[in-house]
Structure formats: structure tokens, C-alpha cells
């Protein structure tokens, strides 16, 4: 497989103070769906802006299909499609007018690449006369996707495409991405939702401008070091303070309405000790059940390990 994107030692600092990206390097293979996963402010959008030629990096080298994003930005722009994090189509133009506008911007036409967008277009064409600003959130994203695909790009960048979109539309959106992939288009997508990451071929975890790890979602899960358990508790958050006194090597964190705990000792002895600890602290709790880790658990573990490492060697 050849690389669609190669990123080498990219750095970006805003106003000489805020470090947005710190020595970022990775490759994206042609035809894969590559996910960039990280919390808000991790540097995802900055990286996207650099990849889409909107922002210059302070240092480093990036090439898309062999073209340099800085020197050959004109040819790069012809082969990429970009869906920004916020809805950026003209709200006062109709669905069709928007699509036509962007088709011409790429010296293409709606008819030329209809094949590629037909499945999505079918869903929004009943509203083709409606102003883009009056569409629902999910419809807006589908239209934006159409506009980003109208020139048949080789690489498609999607910056948090499902943020603020309802769960049903989110699922639909990912199904569409899968179908785009079958057309041979490389897709790079960023998301703060870890559950979506499993739908990518490979993911890069990013935090504070640094890449924490790159792998397939299943490999991340396979490499999870601890033994993960979940239980219910009345005092999910007050447990956080109590856990500081816990003598076990473990990592506790709230996870939705549940508590997750990962043990790094032999579970046969650690689990009873933990239950005893909870009893001593007067904490009632539900049954403690072993579960398989999710990508989010993996992310939390990697961040934790990094922090621990940074503390021992400052």
C-alpha cells in the first residue's frame, strides 16, 4: 500500500505561546478511513487546517499523494475535499445553488460526479429548493458532504463531522463514509467521540498536540494492559477522592453512569482487596463485572501511563 498522506515532524505554535502541535509524524495509507481521536483542544483542527492548506506549519513536511502542501498547495486543493468543523455553506443559498457553486469552484459540474454523490443526494434532493440555513443538522452535514465530494477528491478531510448531530444521523453518516471508501477515496476524520473511532480502519490518538499512538482500533483494545471491571455506585464522583487512598495498583474513572476500574495486579487477589477497601470506606456498590475495554478505555489508559511516566522522569 502506498501512502496517501505523509506527515513528518510537524510543529505549530500560536502567537509564540500556545503549542498546538508538537513533533507530529504519521502516515495515512491510500484508501483507508483514518480517525484522529482526541478531546477538544487536542490539536485536531489545527492539524486539519494545515493538511487542507489553510494554515502553514512552523516546521515539518507534509505531502498528499506526493504533493507538498506548502509549495504545491494549488494542485493539492484540487485533489482534496474538506468538511470543516462548523457548517460553512451559504445559508441564504438553496441546497442546489450551494452544490452548483462549489462544483464550479472546482471547475466541475453536478452532473459530472453525480455517481459518487448519488446515495447522499437522493436523501437531500427533496429539499433542493430549500435554503441551506433552514436544513436540520443532519441534512446540513449531508449537503456539506456532497459539496466536499462534488469534484471527486482523492482525499476527504472531515473535521468532527458528527459533532452536534443526532445518533441516528450519526450512524447514517458513518455508513456513507464506508461507502465512500469503496470508491477508493482516502478518508481522514476527526472526532471527539471514542465510540465512533471503532468504525475507522486505523486511528491516531492525539492529546495536547502530541500523537499518543497509532493503531487499528482492535489492536488498541488488544494491547490494553489492565483488567477492566465495571460497577454501579451511588457516589461516582466522591469515590474519586477516596480512591487516592486505595493501596492497589489500579485506575478508577467515571464512565457515563458507571464506574470503570482497571487493575494492574493479579485480579484474583486484587478484586477481593478492592471490595474490602470499598466496604472499609463505607461505600455501597453494585456487582463488579469484568468487561472488554473500549477505545475510550484505551485512550484513558494511555494518557494515564504517559502522565505517570512524566511524573517519574520530569
Amino acid at each position, binding site marked *: 500500500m502506498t501512502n496517501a498522506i505523509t506527515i513528518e515532524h510537524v510543529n505549530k505554535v500560536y502567537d509564540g505561546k500556545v503549542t498546538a502541535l508538537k513533533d507530529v509524524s504519521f502516515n495515512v495509507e491510500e484508501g483507508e478511513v483514518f480517525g484522529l481521536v482526541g478531546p477538544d483542544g487536542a490539536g485536531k483542527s489545527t492539524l486539519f487546517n494545515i493538511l*487542507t*492548506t*489553510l*494554515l*502553514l506549519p512552523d516546521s515539518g513536511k507534509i505531502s498528499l499523494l506526493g504533493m507538498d502542501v506548502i509549495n504545491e498547495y*494549488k494542485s493539492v*486543493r*484540487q485533489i*482534496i475535499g*474538506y468538511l*470543516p468543523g*462548523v*457548517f*460553512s*455553506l*451559504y*445559508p*441564504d*443559498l438553496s441546497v442546489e*445553488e450551494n452544490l*452548483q*457553486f*462549489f462544483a*464550479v*469552484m*472546482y*471547475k466541475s459540474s453536478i452532473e459530472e460526479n453525480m455517481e459518487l454523490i448519488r446515495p447522499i443526494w437522493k436523501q437531500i434532493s427533496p429539499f433542493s429548493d430549500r435554503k441551506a440555513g433552514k436544513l436540520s443538522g443532519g441534512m446540513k452535514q449531508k449537503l456539506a458532504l456532497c*459539496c466536499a465530494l462534488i469534484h471527486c477528491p482523492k482525499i476527504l478531510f472531515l473535521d468532527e463531522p458528527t459533532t452536534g448531530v443526532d445518533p441516528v444521523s450519526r450512524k447514517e453518516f458513518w455508513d456513507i463514509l464506508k461507502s465512500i471508501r469503496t470508491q477508493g477515496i482516502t478518508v481522514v476524520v476527526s472526532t471527539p467521540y471514542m465510540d465512533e473511532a471503532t468504525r475507522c480502519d486505523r486511528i491516531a490518538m492525539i492529546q495536547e498536540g502530541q500523537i499518543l499512538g497509532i493503531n487499528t482500533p482492535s489492536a488498541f483494545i488488544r494491547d490494553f494492559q489492565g483488567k477492566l471491571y465495571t460497577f454501579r455506585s451511588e457516589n461516582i464522583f466522591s469515590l474519586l477522592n477516596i480512591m487516592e487512598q486505595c493501596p492497589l495498583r489500579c485506575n478508577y474513572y467515571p464512565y457515563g453512569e458507571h464506574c470503570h476500574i482497571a487493575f494492574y495486579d493479579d485480579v484474583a487477589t486484587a478484586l477481593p482487596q478492592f471490595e474490602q477497601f470499598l466496604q472499609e470506606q463505607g461505600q455501597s456498590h453494585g456487582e463488579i463485572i469484568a468487561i472488554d475495554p473500549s477505545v475510550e478505555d484505551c485512550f484513558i489508559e494511555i494518557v494515564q501511563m504517559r502522565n505517570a511516566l512524566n511524573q517519574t522522569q520530569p
Partner: protein
Amino acid sequence: MRTILILIKKEFLQVFRNPLLIGILTVAPMVQFIIFPFCADYEIKVLHIAFIDNDHSTISQDLTHTFNASGYFISHGLVKNKKEAEKMMKHDKIDILVEFPHDFERSLYNNEPTQIAITANAINTMKAGIGTGYVQNIIGDYLNDFAQNNRPPQAPTKVSINISNVYWYNEQMNYKNLIVPGILVILVTLIGCYVTALNLVREKEIGTIEQVNVTPIRRWQFLLGKMIPFWILGISEFIIGLVIMKLVFGITVQGSIPMLLGCTAIYLLVMLGLGFFISSIADNQLQAMFIVLFLFIVFVLLSGLFTPTEGMPEWAHKINYLNPMSFFMNVIKKVVLKGTEVESLRTEFIVLSVMAVVINTGAVVSYKESSK
């Protein structure tokens, strides 16, 4: 070419779907045209006047009546003393006080010098200046007549000079003739600078500029696609203004209309470029609005619309070399009222063209900087 055409089409679609913009483009000029020229008028039609008559003679009484007959004055009659008159002026009851001295009549008959005191409320300098002018005229006329009728037969005829004024290019000294072309200038400036700056900043605000920037379209294409529609709008607005000027105010353009349009086209390029430049440094519509407003007020005050530029200090003249509006105002006034030929306006044309090139280059560079 197709790219620029669709950019223009898109811009027009957006303009005609934006009710606020349509309002600015249609209602604002109408209102300005209808209200401004009628309100901004230097002619004073009503002056309140009072008299102190220390003479109580036939002549002083006769003169007092002359004021009433002139039609410009509303007389508040005789006032007993200065104190009372001061009180009236303080309460804005009267604008002008005329005081006849003792022995006024006697001095006149004896051909002795005498003095009439005219006191005016100068809070409104314009009113005071014009008011005292009227008063002097009326008294002067009266005394002239008096001298004619009461000249002793044996006395030699004094050479009396009558000064009569003829105002060229604006024969009735009609203030509307000055202000209406000025409003045309303001209109074109507003559309060129204000609307364009707001339009481009809005694209920044809603993020559409980012979506356009990732396309292979070139910067100059994008700016041209913005410029042409507003350029067309500006010229159309100017033509509508000319029509209103003719139909409502009866002002006919004395000079060549194609030349007028040519100059407007160049001036619009300056203003469009300025609008783009402002939009590249402003982050949101509010900032853009304040920058435009600031520049606009400076431009208008220095342009000579309200006060003649000749009365301004040297440094203001120097600043005016950078004020495109002042050059354009000059052209409009000269061509509309005076019918000046293109040869005499060469400087203005050259300066505006240079400004257009400089500001637009600046805008493209600044736009590139801000989008990198």
C-alpha cells in the same frame, strides 16, 4: 471565466435575498435624498427681533415697521431697557436686538454720524451672521432712501455705490444644488466601502471563506467575483441618484454624463478596495462597521460637503490629499454644476486611479496574509 460568473451570480442571489441589504440599498438613499437637502439649508427664514428705542422719533418708528414688512422677522416690539432685552435673549425669545440711540433722527437730519447697536445671539453662528446681515441690509436700504428724499437741493450729490451680487453656477445660491450632488457621493461611498466590507467579513464570520479557500480558486478571482457585483450596484445606484436629482430637484448635469460615470467607476474601485482592505483586518462585522464609520466621518468632514475646504488649515489640506472623497466631491460638483471639461479634471482622475491601484493591491496582499 465560468468561475467568476458563478461568483457574481452567487453574490447577486445573496444580495437580493438579504432584506436588510435591500433596505440599505433602496430606502436609505431615498430617505437621504428626500430629507437631507430640505433640512440642511443655510437660508434663515424666521428671525425673532426686538427693539430698544431711545429716540422715539418718526424715523426710528418707521424703521421698526420696515422690519415687520420684510417678512424675515417676527417682531417682539419695543423693549423698555437692555436688562429686559437680555432676559429675552437668554430665554431664546429673540435672536436679534436693535437699539436706536438718543438723537438718532436729529443726527440724520444734521448729517452727523450716529450708531445703531445690533446685538445677535451667536450660539448659532450661522443664524447670527446671516441675521445681522439682513438687519444691515434693511437699515442700509432705508437710509439710502432717506438720503435720496431729504437731500438738500443745494448739496452736492454723493456718489452712492450699489453692490449687486451674481452667483455663478448656482444662481439662486440654492443650498440644495450643493448638497444633492454631495449626497450622491455619500451614497456611492456607502455602497462601495460599507456594504463590501460587511459582506466579506460576514463570509469570515460564518466560515464560508474557509470552505472557499480550500478550493483551487485563486484569490484575485474571488475578489473580482466580489467586486464586480458591488461595482455594478454602485453604478446603478449612482444612475438612480442622477435621475432623482433631475426629477425631484430639477438639477441638470451641466457636464458630460459619460465622464461622470467614468469617474464614479474609478472612485468605486477605490472604495471597494478600501472595503476589502478593512474586511481583511477586521474579525467581525462590528469591528468592520466601526472602522468604516470612523473613516467615513473623517472623509465627509474633510470632503468639503458641509464646510468649504478652502477654510481649512494647512494640515487638513495635506490630509485631504489622501481623502478620495474630497477628489470625487470636487469632480461631481464641478461636472454637475459647472460643466467642467475632462481636461481640467485630469489631476482628480489620475489621483483616483492611482488610489484605486494602490488600495486594491494592498487589499489583495493583506487578504493573502490574513488567510495564510
